[in-house]
């Protein structure tokens, strides 16, 4: 569904991605790696928020390398950004609806999707009138996930979704992702590698903007290097 070929990107003079290639089909893919490895940057290039210096991105058989962000989203890519990027002065409800309204897939049956999201995060239903900016850190994360789901994406990208979530909800979120990956593509970055390996089919380890290791979940879980670097806690 998504295929990235030899992606290179930089912020000014700082080269961050040194030619990365990666594929996401149906099912789920995990991106792991130390801080500053370039995971978020990679996601931003997929979305078109950071331009590629060279390389190619194909989504759903369309070359989207130079398309603007909103077009990519309308093609079916949704993201839960690391920084959440909510609309602080809109209510929880409005934030959710706007996540659906501007995408062809999400627009179809908003009440239905809304129910699904509220079922996953009951607190959002409870707080549907509260301004998003006044939610607690973890509640905001839930709202960001909910908003991405509202678009009914073909590919769901989650940048460290468990950050700041309480353990029970993290657990639940991963259960849901596990279920979702049967229907849509999921690309996820996580520091919580142990929990994510439960969900992903395939994983890539990125260091310094290069893929240093890849394999399916069991291979990675049993790889002693991965064990040492990422599964300590």
């Amino acid at each position, binding site marked *: 569904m998504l295929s990235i070929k030899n992606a290179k990107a930089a912020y000014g003079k700082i080269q961050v991605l040194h030619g990365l290639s990666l594929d996401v089909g149906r099912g789920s893919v995990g991106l792991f790696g130390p801080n500053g490895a370039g995971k978020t940057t990679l996601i931003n290039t997929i*979305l078109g*928020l950071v331009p590629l210096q060279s390389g190619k991105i194909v989504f759903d058989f369309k070359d989207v390398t130079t398309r*603007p*962000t*909103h077009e990519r*989203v*309308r093609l079916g890519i*949704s*993201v839960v*950004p690391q920084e959440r*990027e*909510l*609309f*602080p*002065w*809109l209510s929880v409800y*409005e934030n959710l*609806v*706007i*996540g659906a*309204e*501007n*995408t062809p897939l999400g627009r179809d049956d908003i009440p239905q999707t809304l129910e699904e999201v509220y079922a996953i995060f009951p607190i959002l239903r409870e707080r549907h009138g509260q301004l998003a900016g006044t939610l607690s850190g973890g509640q905001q994360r839930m709202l960001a996930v909910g*908003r991405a789901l509202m*678009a009914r994406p073909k590919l769901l990208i989650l940048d460290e979704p468990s950050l700041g979530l309480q353990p029970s909800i993290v657990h639940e979120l991963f259960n849901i992702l596990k279920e979702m990956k049967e229907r849509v593509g999921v690309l996820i970055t996580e520091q919580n590698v142990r929990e994510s390996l439960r969900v992903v089919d395939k994983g890539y380890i990125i260091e310094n903007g290069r893929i240093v290791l890849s394999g399916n979940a069991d291979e990675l879980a049993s790889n002693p290097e991965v064990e040492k670097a990422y599964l300590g806690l």
Partner: protein
Amino acid sequence: MSTSKIVRIAGFSAGALFVIMLIVLKPTALIYGIQRAGIYAAIAIPMALILGIVHIVNLAHGEMMMVAAYLSYYLARTFGLDPLLSAIPTGIIMFLFGLMIFRTTIQHTLKAPELNQLILTFGVAMVLSQTVNLIATSQPRKLSLDYVSASATLGDISFGIYDFVFPVVAIIFLIVLLLFLKRTKLGKAALAVGQNPNGAQIVGINVQLTYALIFGIASMLIGIFGGFFLTKFSIFPAVGGSYTMKSFCLVAMAGIGNLPMVAAASLLLGIAESSIMAVPHGAPWAPMIFFVLIVVVILVRSFRRAS
């Protein structure tokens, strides 16, 4: 909580009392105040829209209106089109003109600090007014229209009624914009863009287009108003300048992004000013009332929020 309620009730009753006194003692002051408020609101509302969504203090706001008024003037002189009718073609032309200004200049500074756009629009204002000055000279122009002097008599007082078009225009602007923002997809998207452009992109909103359209729509409104402005006022290249500042003040008094409050603020200031002017030798103090009220309202709001 309860004290703030008491304060609010006291404030309301004081206001009501004042209005009643005005009706009894000086009814025309109330009438002129409302008419005046209409002008303020109609000019300030489009500015509030731009400030709330594109986050730009458009210092060329009044100049855009000036350009529109000149357009209406020449449409009237060449084609004999009444300015109230030419408001429509002027509005369309100004929509395109607004888009053009946005695309050629402002768009390229959106990522720069806020002040850059401020000074940029200051440059635009300068270019607009000075260009018009070169073409049309500084000599004021005005169409002489009979209906502008339409009057009504109530008891033993006569007053102009034409000026009620201004509050009407302002209310139409307000309602149309509110419906647009709450009901249409573009409007809702615009609100989102105003709060978080990055977030808006990732839910599939075309942010650049939204900015451009909002700027265009605001330019269109101010363009339409240019035609109305021409019916009552003389126009000259510098005529817009003072309205830029006043609109800016009104928008701040209302609270950024709050369109209905712009109308309310205009009403307050319009009535306050015309009440002062109704007092003999009060006129030189009218601008004082304007600015003092603005400062007081802004301060009171900030104190209320803090407590």
